[in-house]
């Protein structure tokens, strides 16, 4: 096998080569670093850490030689720049944290390091994870490695907010990447780039050391090339963490070891609300996906989620409310960007935040501040939380009747980088229409590749399950993945 072919393998395939000693960890990492450097035109990484990566790979090589390697020993990964990494700059895609170097490591990245992973660098993202196209980053947009077959010159967005992470995996720079999902930021970009992305149950992965966007919605998760890769990644990333009060107690299962690829007798709910007004391309993909699942022995149940239409509006009250408070700490007083030549403390705040935050972030801070202010709080925030519990209730009832729910991940394939800024904020927000409910309710959702548009842009489907149903989601997804691979 050619050296440059290694990095196109799946994570599990690469792991086999490393564990058997056929490929050295340093060689593999060097191949990935070369690819990272060769892809700078895509603006995938905000910070590259090749020196660290080589040191980690050398360490891994020793451990692999002594058969002491962890489950991800020597595997090059990319880390979304929302995870604080000790002594490595962490920006959250914002000017306000442009030069911020955390003196601590997030729990999720520490878990990966403990398993022997090699970190290539920190990937670009929408500023503070606020966006669906990775065009709000202070460090510029990410360009997807995916191209339209009809218009290969056109630069497409990778989706957002985890745009850099999916681009790094889709461009075969990293074998997998960490991402985060507040309203769809793992699943929609996975759908846009033909990858697998899972947002787990709220509380499965620790939020400690993850720069907060909306605390009650944020969840860490992986993006990967295959379902099995994603299962292994999540098994390592997830842990109970006493440093995060919302972390769920108990041991996390080994999703890969327990994997049972099957859809037999699985009751799959098809919410009618998610199948209205879809594009023909998407309909074709969904119909063939259903056929594949039917062939695998799945049973379909027509369902209705009447509360679903309220998810997005309520999400755009709760998420900005929490964000407006979470982002108050970026005030120029202790760390990060500080405006110069200001008269008094009020001006310091105003100027630091006006210059330090981008337009989308400021928009959401304004919305959040408004919905929490006296006179609006009851009508907006409290009402949205009430509706949220109704939505949760409806999902819980639905999961009495079905094992999983199938929906499209996004309404469309990746659009052009130039088109993004022309979209209205509301149109951009509509990107999250199928994904936000999982965050509002706290349930897991996985996006897997299901087909493409006529011009070859990937389209994903999403499975939603009850809380802690990650194993079920991996099982059905793996069965689907195996079946579609055979077909092709």
């Amino acid at each position, binding site marked *: 096998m050619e050296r440059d072919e290694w990095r196109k393998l799946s994570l599990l395939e690469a792991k086999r080569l490393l564990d058997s000693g056929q490929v050295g960890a340093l060689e593999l990492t060097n191949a990935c670093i070369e690819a990272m450097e060769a892809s700078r035109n895509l603006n995938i990484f905000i910070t590259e850490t090749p020196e660290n990566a080589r040191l980690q790979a050398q360490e891994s090589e020793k451990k692999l030689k002594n058969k002491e390697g962890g489950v991800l020993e020597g595997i090059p990964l990319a880390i979304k720049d929302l995870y604080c990494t000790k002594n490595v700059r962490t920006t959250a895609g914002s000017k306000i944290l442009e030069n911020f170097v955390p003196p601590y490591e997030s729990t999720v990245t520490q878990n990966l390091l403990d398993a022997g992973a090699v970190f290539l660098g920190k990937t670009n993202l929408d500023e503070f994870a606020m966006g669906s196209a990775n065009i709000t980053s202070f460090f510029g947009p990410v360009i997807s490695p995916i191209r339209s077959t009809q218009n290969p010159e056109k630069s497409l967005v990778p989706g957002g907010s985890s745009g850099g992470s999916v681009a790094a995996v889709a461009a075969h720079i990293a074998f997998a990447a960490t991402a985060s999902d507040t309203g769809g930021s793992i699943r929609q970009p996975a759908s846009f780039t033909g990858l697998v992305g899972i947002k787990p149950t709220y509380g499965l992965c620790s939020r400690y*050391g993850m720069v*907060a966007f909306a*605390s009650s919605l944020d969840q860490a998760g992986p993006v990967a090339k295959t379902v099995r890769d994603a299962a292994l990644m999540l098994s390592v990333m997830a842990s109970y963490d006493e*440093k995060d009060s*919302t972390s769920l107690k108990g041991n996390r299962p080994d999703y890969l070891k327990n994997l049972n690829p099957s859809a037999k007798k699985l009751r799959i709910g098809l919410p009618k609300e998610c199948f209205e007004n879809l594009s023909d391309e998407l309909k074709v993909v969904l119909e063939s996906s259903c056929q594949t699942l039917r062939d695998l022995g799945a049973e379909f149940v027509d369902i209705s989620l009447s509360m679903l239409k309220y998810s997005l509006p309520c999400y755009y009250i709760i998420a900005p409310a929490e964000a407006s*408070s979470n982002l108050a700490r970026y*005030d120029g007083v202790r760390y990060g960007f500080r405006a110069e030549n200001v008269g008094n*403390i009020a001006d310091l*705040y105003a100027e630091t935040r006006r210059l330090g935050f981008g337009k989308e972030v400021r928009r959401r801070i304004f919305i959040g501040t408004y919905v929490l*202010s006296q006179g609006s709080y009851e009508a907006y925030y409290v009402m949205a939380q009430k509706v949220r519990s109704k939505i949760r209730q409806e999902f819980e009832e639905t999961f009495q009747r079905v094992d999983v729910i199938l929906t499209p991940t996004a309404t469309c394939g990746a659009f052009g980088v130039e088109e993004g800024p022309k979209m209205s904020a509301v149109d951009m927000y509509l990107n999250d229409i199928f994904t936000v409910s999982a965050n509002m309710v706290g349930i897991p959702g996985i996006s897997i590749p299901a087909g493409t548009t006529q011009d070859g842009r990937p389209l994903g489907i999403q499975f939603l399950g009850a809380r802690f149903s990650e194993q079920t989601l991996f099982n059905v997804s793996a069965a689907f993945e195996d079946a579609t691979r055979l077909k092709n």
Partner: protein
Amino acid sequence: MTKNLIKGKTGPWEIVIGLEVHAQISSKSKLFSGSATEGDGGANSRVNFFDAGMPGMLPVVNSYCIDQAVRMGFGIHGKINKVSVFDRKNYFYPDLPSGYQISQFFYPIVTQGYINIDDETGPKRIGVTRIHMEQDAGKSQHDLDPSRTCIDLNRSGIALMEIVTEPDIRSVAQAVAVAKKIHTLAQYLDVCDGNMERGNFRIDANISLHRPDTAFGTRVEIKNLNSFRFMQAALNYEIDLHLETLESGGKISQETRLFDAAKGKTFTMRDKEDACDYRYFPDPDLNPVVLTEERIERLRQSLPELPDAKKERYKTDLGLSDYDATFLAEDRALGAFYEEALAYPDFPDKKAAPKLVAHWMMGDMAALMNKGDRASDALSLAPRTLAQLVHFIQDGTISGKIAKTVFEKLWEDPALSVVDIVKNMRLQQISDETELRTAIVKMLAEQQHNVAEYRNGKTSLFGFFVGQTMKIFQGKANPAKVNEILHQELDS
């Protein structure tokens, strides 16, 4: 009900006061982080990443602080809420690192309590609306650098308890009594050290005046009162100000004021226009605080006897007066001293001991404490020593008068024992009948003239003979015995 009215030029007014007490919760670590609350590492030495509001850092509640708030809740006879919620109070300030303070706004941990006080009109019950927990902010120091403000985050995140009373208070004296009672309770329960100089116990007072039987007037808040004396002065000043304004037809504007102790005046801190919209909402980083029945019960069991119950016991079981019982019960250290002294096993008259010990504590001991500015919990005198002194008084070894001298010696040098002092100073009372009688007979022989007058009916001379005897014995003669022998010698 007796109304606590004040007279104005234009008629009577009623005062309405409500208090908000901020008490620092005694705890080794902060409310949401493992940082220490005490130490001498200098500025910013007790600050971890969470306390400094670093990105991605999360709060983890210190359950000991929760227990402390529950204990205080029992102290004010409050309802302990099985579910309470931490909210964020959002505002910008340089020493508030996260841009919000974590507090309990919508669902506090304790509600619907009360405390009992006494004032000149008798006992009174004051409602306590709520107790909630919150984080303290850091400290901005403007005087360390000519052009910059320095920030010390050592205090950032330390647990506070806010105790809010109903507007049930009708006089300045009552307000002081309420504040003192809360102070006593907090110390009693070990939930706050009560140190007001260090700001560990500070009071905000809301005050308004209105005509009797009309709606409450507009209130003014005086913040950060850190002594009972200042609180009294500030309230009196504010009452005068309100009276003057209202009686001349003016209006009170709702505002927040501070007290300048040097000038003895209050002044405006911020008016209503500057009032912040704190945008309270439940902190999504924290789960609701859920208290199990077992935990509440365990905390109830862990409580010491509270002042009100102790006072009742002193009155009923030990026969103390209301005044004495209050004095000893309301100071936890004095109460403990008292009970330890009473535990002395060898009192000759066990029944009389409680009153006698109380008498000594309230009289000579209190006087010496006041004189030396000695705190009740820093007494070097051992309770057993006082008990021994009382023992010697009861069995007649020393007289009450001599005992005063002995007590002063003991106070000065706690290493001494009562026995040592009595022996060394030869203070022991002389009760030996033969010794006394010999001396008295001799003295009477020298006073033939006075003895004759006495026997002729001038009985008032008896005191003179007692005095002469005492003179011989340098005051150490047992007075009862002297009386007895004198009567026998003179009247027979």
